[in-house]
């Protein structure tokens, strides 16, 4: 019996690893290409053994528009996340700890705003942004991204606040903690992990957003999503350099994503799947 279950496990291992390898392969292949010379990158048959070079990374780092795009991505993602947190934390706190008759419908209404397809409001947003000079600005994208993610963040924070053990807060109250003390010494440390993972999910979603960034930015405020899509090299061949730029663009978010799988499920399904 032991032997049979061992074989079963071996076969499962084989099948699952084939699936995982196939799925990861495009990412892996891109990362490999980033260490090739341009000639090697387009060689047929594909080069599996080659002289690795860091040249592409050096070239990409020297390009002003890459650095600019990377800075924009960081500024926009962090800015939008902070703005959304500032709006979402008070709202989620109020709804989780002081629910009223309207709480449930407010929450559902907020979620439903997330279901408006961006393409449905592309025209007015574009015209509004044009009239108030927000096209191709970081501020413009920060506002859009904060609004875009706000419902998910309120929702996630709400579920995290709900999980804070009420007994601890009550004990504090009985011990005479003021409301300010209760917030800063009890609630803040208890809910910090939840707030952190909400922020992480927001950064991932902002970083990878590619509808508004492609439509509302041209050069100055273009984040990495837009920069990559217009990538070209003056020297002609550019796959290896594109791969290096892409690898740099996805690496941090891949790590964040791996760290926040659970929140992702919770946040993107609005708790409908547990």
């Amino acid at each position, binding site marked *: 019996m032991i032997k049979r279950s061992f074989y079963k496990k071996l076969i499962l291992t084989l099948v699952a690893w084939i699936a995982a390898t196939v799925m990861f392969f495009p990412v892996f292949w*891109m990362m490999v290409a980033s260490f090739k010379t341009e000639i090697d990158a387009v060689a047929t048959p594909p080069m599996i053994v080659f002289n690795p070079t860091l040249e592409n990374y050096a070239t990409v780092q020297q390009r002003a528009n890459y650095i600019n795009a990377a800075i924009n991505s960081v500024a926009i993602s962090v800015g939008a996340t902070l703005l959304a947190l500032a709006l979402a934390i008070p709202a989620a706190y109020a709804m989780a700890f002081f629910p009223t008759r309207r709480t*449930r419908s407010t929450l559902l209404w*907020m979620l439903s705003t997330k*279901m408006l397809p961006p393409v449905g409001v592309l025209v007015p947003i574009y015209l509004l942004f044009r009239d108030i000079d927000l096209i191709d600005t970081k501020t413009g994208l920060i506002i859009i991204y904060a609004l875009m993610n706000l419902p998910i963040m309120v929702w996630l924070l709400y579920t995290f606040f709900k999980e804070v053990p009420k007994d601890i807060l009550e004990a504090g109250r009985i011990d005479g903690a003021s409301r300010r003390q209760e917030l800063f010494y009890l609630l803040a440390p208890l809910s910090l992990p939840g707030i952190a993972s909400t922020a992480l999910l927001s950064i991932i979603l902002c970083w*990878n957003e590619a509808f508004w960034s492609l439509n509302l930015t041209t050069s100055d405020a273009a984040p990495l*999503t837009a920069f990559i899509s217009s990538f070209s090299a003056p020297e002609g061949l550019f796959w290896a350099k594109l791969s290096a730029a892409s690898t740099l663009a996805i690496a941090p978010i891949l790590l964040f994503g791996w760290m926040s799988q659970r929140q992702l499920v919770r946040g993107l399904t609005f708790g409908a799947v*547990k």
Partner: protein
Amino acid sequence: MTALTKTRRVNTLPLITPSVLVLLLWMVVPLAMTLWFSFQRYNLLNPQIKGFAGLENYKSLLADSALWTAMLNTLVLVASVLGVTVVLGTMLAVLFNQEFFGRGVARLLIIAPFFVMPTVSALVWKNMLLHPVNGLVAFLTRSLGFEAVDWLGNWPMTSIVMIVSWQWLPFALLILLTAIQSLDHEQMEAARMDGAGPIAMFRFIILPHLKRAISVVVMIETIFFLSVFAEILVTTSGGPGLATTNLAFLIYIRALLQYDVGAASAGGVIAIVLANIVAFFLVRTIARSLEEG
């Protein structure tokens, strides 16, 4: 007990109002503008053309064969990617629910595509995998003795479906895996004791349990797939011809390339209506699970 359950009285209005207000603005203003523009003659290139158009934009849009091609393409894209991600996602979720060597690492690798930004994945597929001359797929087909296929030229929609499915399969897998893991183990054990084979187990225990998770995946993915844009812009630009122009891309062409605000807005209204049909069911499902706690 009154002392124990004493709760602070807090005025929650100032805490909730900012979020509600900005979301209301974010929803109502553009929505109202889209509706308004859809009844106007409005072209950015020609300011002379203006005024109330009535249903003209809708009439000309509905008479335009491009709209119907785009609607059909949207439907094909959404349905195909849904089919691929849900079927493969369910199979993979069952697989990754089993114990095997290196499961943690394999799981990290398989969900990676979801965190790759759409423009990067589109370019990797276009240049390094599907390219008819230097692409890896072309190399593989040639070494098997076949002609290399120009995927994006001859099978454009299939290629887009492949790219989007690759990105979203991890999403389906993650959600369905989470759902399977909440399955009652005692029930599984009891069924196994009763002699249920793996297929019967899947058919009568796992699948019914996954019903809600699958419907959630379908609804959320539908809302996202209605607006697939970056993948098309980067790989085919909606072509060849209109072969990969979906509703989102058509609106983009009308608005930002042809500056026809009226027609684009009418298209936008159609997109909103389509998404709302799905959203209605999604909100109902969420509301139900909210009640269950």
